[in-house]
């Protein structure tokens, strides 16, 4: 039923769009992409490699009611199989959804204050603003956005040992039991979150700011129709001392557990008592045909029955160099670090609650036309364990961005 509802929403949006095609107030874009990857599976697995297909089409529309007021709509159709075994998507099926839908009012004040209400991209960090396939110079996303750690929103650990067992969640490796690795609720450190709420943002000559009050956390966004809504505060800002360079910072805090875990909680606690906090720093530097983007994030989770806040840190550094009008090269280095468990392990060891990971993705992109882009990349993915399992990925992606009105001419 939910899918039918989403489909109806998209159709209504499309009908509204069709009704206003003749208006100059409409902005309309479609971004479609398909990814074909061959993933090397961890040693001992069979088959040793497999092909995967991911596809996505996004319809983006904006409509200007007045010079100060406009509405935004984004609907997506996804088919996600994940790039490799280690980072499976939550749902390996085709989904249809409304990603964004909000009203924005520009106040005209000197501070450039804008007010926004609805479902919109989380203002934390920077990568979300360029997550579309034609703006992401590589096929994969930064590791801190995709790696699903052992902290879960829908299942609670009975003790610290559960984290060790859950590290085998997607790695059918010798010595690991996968029986406890199934289930849902694996949380990334930061998701591609489109929560629902209110946001104020603006910018001056050398700085920008964002402040949002939304319904769900960075790692576990919720649709507004689901039960277990939880208030999250997000504050972010940046300085741009000169146009080639910007340094930003973000902070977010709020509950992250699903309401469904209530029955598993220790007596006297409530699922909203357990929070995720995150602090992020991001920078962008541009020199002619050379672009550098980087994000650093510290986050921690309060987990029931675990005496310490479980922290993690992740960062990436991304470089892109345009060689010719059609050809560019890109690379991204990622690392993730996880806290050690300070108690609850009886043999005196202090294992991490998740294995550290690092990843290097190198790619090349070629503009076949203004609208058509082809990218290819290779990901070296490593998990820092005794076995050092390899789960490298090689892939190719085709991206098409166009204004659908041009097809109707």
């Amino acid at each position, binding site marked *: 039923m939910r899918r039918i509802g989403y489909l109806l929403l998209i159709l209504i949006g499309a009908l509204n769009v069709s009704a206003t095609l003749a208006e100059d107030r409409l902005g309309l874009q479609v971004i479609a992409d398909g990814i074909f990857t061959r993933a090397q599976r961890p040693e001992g697995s069979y088959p040793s490699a497999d092909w995967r297909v991911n596809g996505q089409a996004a319809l983006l529309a904006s409509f200007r009611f007045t010079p100060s007021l406009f509405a935004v709509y984004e609907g997506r159709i996804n088919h996600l199989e994940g790039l490799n075994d280690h980072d499976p998507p939550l749902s390996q099926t085709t989904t249809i959804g409304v990603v964004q839908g909000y009203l924005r009012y520009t106040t005209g004040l000197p501070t450039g204050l804008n007010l926004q209400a609805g479902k919109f991209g989380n203002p934390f960090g920077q990568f979300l603003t360029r997550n579309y396939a034609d703006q992401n110079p590589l096929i994969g996303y930064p590791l801190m956005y995709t790696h699903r750690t052992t902290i879960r929103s829908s299942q609670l650990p009975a003790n610290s040992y559960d984290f060790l067992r859950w590290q085998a969640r997607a790695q059918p490796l010798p010595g690991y039991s996968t029986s406890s690795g199934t289930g849902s609720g694996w949380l990334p450190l930061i998701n591609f979150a489109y929560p629902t709420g209110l946001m104020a943002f603006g910018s001056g000559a050398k700085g920008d700011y964002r402040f949002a009050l939304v319904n769900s956390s960075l790692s576990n966004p919720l649709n507004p129709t689901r039960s277990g809504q939880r208030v999250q505060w997000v504050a972010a800002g940046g300085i741009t001392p000169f146009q080639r360079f910007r340094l930003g910072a973000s902070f977010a805090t709020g509950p992250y557990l699903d309401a469904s875990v209530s029955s598993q909680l220790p007596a006297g606690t409530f699922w909203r008592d357990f929070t995720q906090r995150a602090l992020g720093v991001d920078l962008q530097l541009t020199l002619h045909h050379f672009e550098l983007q980087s994000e650093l994030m510290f986050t921690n989770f309060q987990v029931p029955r675990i005496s310490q806040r479980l922290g993690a840190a992740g960062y990436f550094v991304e470089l892109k160099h345009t060689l010719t*009008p059609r050809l560019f090269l890109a690379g991204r280095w990622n690392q993730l670090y996880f806290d050690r468990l300070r108690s609850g392990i009886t043999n005196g060891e202090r294992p991490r609650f998740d294995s550290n990971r690092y990843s290097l993705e190198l790619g090349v992109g070629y503009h076949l036309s203004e609208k058509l882009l082809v990218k290819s990349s290779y990901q070296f993915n490593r998990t820092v364990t005794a076995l050092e399992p390899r789960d490298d990925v090689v892939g190719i992606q085709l991206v098409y961005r166009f204004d659908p009105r041009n097809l109707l001419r």
Partner: protein
Amino acid sequence: MWLAFSWCTASIPEICCASGKALIGEAAGCVTVQARHSQGTRLKAFPPRIRCPLAAFIVLGTLTAFLSSSAVWLPSNVNALASAPPNGEFATLRGVVRIESKIQPRGHAINFYSRRGGPAVLPKPAAPINELESVVLYLEDFKAAGAPFPRRSRGVEPTIRQVNETFVPQMLAIQTGETVRFPNDDPFFHNVFSLSGARSFDLGRYPKNQVRSVKFDRPGIVKIFCHIHSHMNAVVRVFDHPYFCRAGSDGTFSIAQVPEGTYTIVAWHERLKPQRQVIRVQPGENVSIDFVL
């Protein structure tokens, strides 16, 4: 000395053509009067043989500076042939273009996320574009009879600005060998590029008040975009002959110095079906042609 001024005032309108004549003629006249008034007493200090070239130098210098700073509002069809005054060997093609077909409107900017480091306010809605100014009139498949084509004299470098996330103008017609300037007037980066066969380039990211330039050596249609703002687009039409012009805001156009012969004249708009007419040009005559797109 005053002869020099009079010569300047009289000859300037001849440089211009069509609707550009009145505007530049008036402006130049104004500059001349001011120069005459303000320089007169000081020039008396110089002997007559120095005064004359000095006065001419001042007037021409002022005029050059004025033209350089007025690139944006120069009428679109000022760029007709300027190499010589009309004479009996050539004809002038004049006419009016009207647009009666419905033109697909250009979409506005989509800023789906709160920008990091850019202005938070929306770009101002662009003023309604006069699509007549995006119509280019040109002679098709023009072949030179032996001698190379005369060069057009424009006075200022052709320029496409980036203002409020819009290319201004969105249509430019130039002759091969000309260089187009792309100044960034917005307080954030733009990345102008083209993948067109006639000229592909990528100017990289550059900030406000910086200018990058591109020379166009091959005839054709060059579509211009911005890597950062996908809704921005413009077109440069490059011709290997000088017989073209853009229509004015009222649809009037003029192509001067056309030699005798039979030609196909085309009225072209990026988003409309082009219209063609075959014309016979006799020396010294004015040919009138109207188009409805």
